[in-house]
């Protein structure tokens, strides 16, 4: 990957913390990192590179700083320079940037993609009744899941069913996109093509091709959801991965209880959790949900909003500091402050 890709995640106006961005793309977030992810409008990049190593990321940022594309304004806080912004725009023109990032997270496309590629090879070889071939590499877990899936298939229908679904899906794609996607598939006496052997922009790298593929497989998963049933072998294959649960069970339970009108103190008591944990659950829910799906009015009363509006006058929400509104040691105060910032952010960013 070119280090310039990271410029996509920084801004010329808004100073951004490098560790927040790392935590987001690596999917190693805390409540605070997710809040800043919302502020930076980068939540859609969540979990894009789970394998990313800290050193690799640090070196890339160092290089961008050396190239005068990024400027460190205080330790860990960066701004795009004028030059960096131009490089960012140039990068966007020459490389692939995903369009359906949010859907990718929801559908867990990154986990489905290798599974599909291998299943596709298995079905292709099966259609030729060939058992002697070099299988594509896969983790043990993936191989076992695939074996189980294959065992459960009606072998008389598998090949036509698989073929017809793919055919129907490819028909929905632009011709060139469908051609490239199919060209990447491996199967019986078909080695498949690498990105640099296809009719794709010459400026692309392997990373661009990876992002491009994620997008196509996300489109496949959306297509399956809309046009097929559980009888479909690809749908059954996808069941091994499945959609991401929006929230962990514990968080969902706290949030459901809150929606049903229970106070945070009551929830903490009933669930034998710390109040701080329940507050964290609610803040995370607020960060990820659309404006109208979180009961802000239960917590942000008219009076509270009035007080905050009076005290938090800086138009830049990033500049708000808790100490400006802090009155006592009650932890509810921080919850209110953060929730108000989330609410204002969502309104400012035009979230539905």
């Amino acid at each position, binding site marked *: 990957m070119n280090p310039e890709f990271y410029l996509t995640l920084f801004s010329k106006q808004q100073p951004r913390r490098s560790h927040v961005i790392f935590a987001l793309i690596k999917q190693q977030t805390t409540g605070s990192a997710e809040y800043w992810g919302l502020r930076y409008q980068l939540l859609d990049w969540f979990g894009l590179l789970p394998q990313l190593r800290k050193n690799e990321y640090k070196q890339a940022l160092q290089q961008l700083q050396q190239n005068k594309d990024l400027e460190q304004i205080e330790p860990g806080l960066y701004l795009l320079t004028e030059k960096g912004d131009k490089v960012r725009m140039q990068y966007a023109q020459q490389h692939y940037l995903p369009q359906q990032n949010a859907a990718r997270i929801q559908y867990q496309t990154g986990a489905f993609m*290798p599974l599909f*590629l291998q299943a*596709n090879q298995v*079905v*292709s070889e099966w*259609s*030729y009744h060939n*058992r*002697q*071939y*070099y*299988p*594509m*590499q896969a*983790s*043990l*877990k993936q191989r076992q899941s695939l074996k189980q899936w294959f065992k459960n298939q009606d072998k008389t229908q598998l*090949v*036509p069913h*698989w*073929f017809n679904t*793919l*055919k129907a899906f*490819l028909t929905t794609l632009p*011709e060139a996109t*469908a*051609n*490239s*996607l*199919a*060209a990447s*598939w*491996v*199967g*019986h*006496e*078909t*080695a*498949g*093509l*690498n*990105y640099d*052997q*296809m*009719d794709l922009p010459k400026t692309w790298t*392997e990373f661009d091709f*990876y992002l491009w593929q994620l997008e196509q497989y996300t489109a496949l998963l959306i297509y399956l959801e809309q046009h097929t049933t559980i009888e479909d072998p690809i749908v059954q294959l996808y069941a091994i991965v499945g959609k991401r649960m929006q929230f962990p069970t514990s968080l969902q339970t706290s949030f459901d209880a809150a929606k049903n009108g229970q106070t945070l103190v009551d929830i903490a008591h009933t669930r034998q959790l710390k109040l701080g944990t329940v507050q964290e659950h609610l803040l995370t829910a607020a960060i990820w949900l659309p404006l109208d799906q979180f009961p802000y009015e239960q917590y942000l009363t008219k009076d509270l909003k009035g007080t905050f509006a009076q005290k938090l006058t800086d138009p830049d929400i990033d500049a708000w500091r808790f100490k400006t509104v802090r009155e006592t040691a009650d932890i509810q105060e921080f919850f209110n402050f953060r929730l108000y910032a989330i609410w204002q952010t969502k309104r400012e960013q035009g979230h539905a």
Partner: protein
Amino acid sequence: MLNQTDIQATLKQHFGFETFRPGQLEIIEALLRGDAALGMLPTGGGKSLIYQMMGYLRPGTVVIVTPLLSLMQDQVARFNYLGEKSVVALNSTMDAQEKFTILGHLNRYRFVFISPEMLNQANVLQAFQRIQINTFVIDEAHTLLSWGPDFRPDYLDLPRLHHLLGAPSLLLLTATATPAMQEDLKGRFDLGSAQWFTYTESSNRPNIYLHTEELTNQDDKRQRLQFLVHQIPGAGIVYVSSRKMANSLAEFLRQETGKRVAAYHGGLDNVARYRLQQQFMENQLDVIVATSAFGMGIDKDDIRFVIHYHLSQDLANYMQEIGRAGRDGQNAVAILLYIKGDERIQQHLIDASLPTDAMIEGYYAKVLTQRDIGEERARLLDYYGQQKLSVPAIQQLFAERRIVREADLNQMVKYAQSRSALRPKLLGYFGEKASSDFESIGMANWALTAVGLPAAPKEQPHVNQTDWSTILTKLFKLS
């Protein structure tokens, strides 16, 4: 005790062969009678068949210590191809859960591939101590000596690990070990009452024509490479020293020779690597430009030329790399292109891997950290620190390693600069004698006809992108 008829029957049943290649049966018989074996067989001489056979001839798990992740994965794919399913590669790409599951059921596997680093982990070793080990195999056993001291110290621990596993039946395999290396290797293992059986096949590959050229500058070398790649028919490999060079030369050769060329290196993801291997196997690619650090696990037996655009680390590695040519027994050619100063790349690699005296002193005095001296060097020094060696002793050890590696590199350079007798020089490194009647030196003496290459295989259609419905039809035999 199994007799020869049983062994032959197993060979026929699992591999479909009637006869063994030289050395295979001798080594198998030695292992079956309880000897430890060191097999020095040339590249492509069928080393892996020996331990595969052991897996079928007696119970227990065959443990194969393998240096490279890519080789490990390719071996597993090859075993799968042959219909063997109870095989697994234990490596660093596995998550904790997966590793735990495999370690809990180790005895279910007939073959386990593992890196020395993984085997040296306490919980992994314990799991292997609980199972019956059929044979403990160290593949590419020369790496114990060439990588152990200054690159991968866990290799040095293999004799100790073998002992901790109860000294199971031991098999060392290599294609490139001098007689001194063979003795050194054997001396490191405690065999108890077992004896060593050594089988040595000549390293010579008489069907590979040797050729070297010394050129004056980079441009000339590039042009010469272009000419040779264009001229020599059949499949070929060009070895270079970096990924960047592999990519740029592949692009250059693609444009200038009209051949189908791809870069092949450790930076490729698994799927991309798989596609290139298959394309190469199916003659849809003519030339692979590869980094030497990256092994090519899948056997393609009709590679007709190997061209070194950069020097190898030493003659042992050079032999290993050119050994990929002509495995079908038909003639092939190994060409080395050299310009004065090329050795600087290898010299840099030596400098980059060995810690300096100041680094050694600073690291143990805790003045320097891993960050200052690099992860690899720190790991190496941690290892020697655990051996309770003094700082001067460790400095001495690395000074000696430098002398050995520089002397080995020097031999490589001498081969490149040689004005005569290429094969005697190459084989001399392995303590063998050879004549120099199938070789040439210098551009003026190069004649493709002298190589006597067989007719090139039928070229498969160019892999061009086509329309998706044609691809689907071909993939699933439906329309």
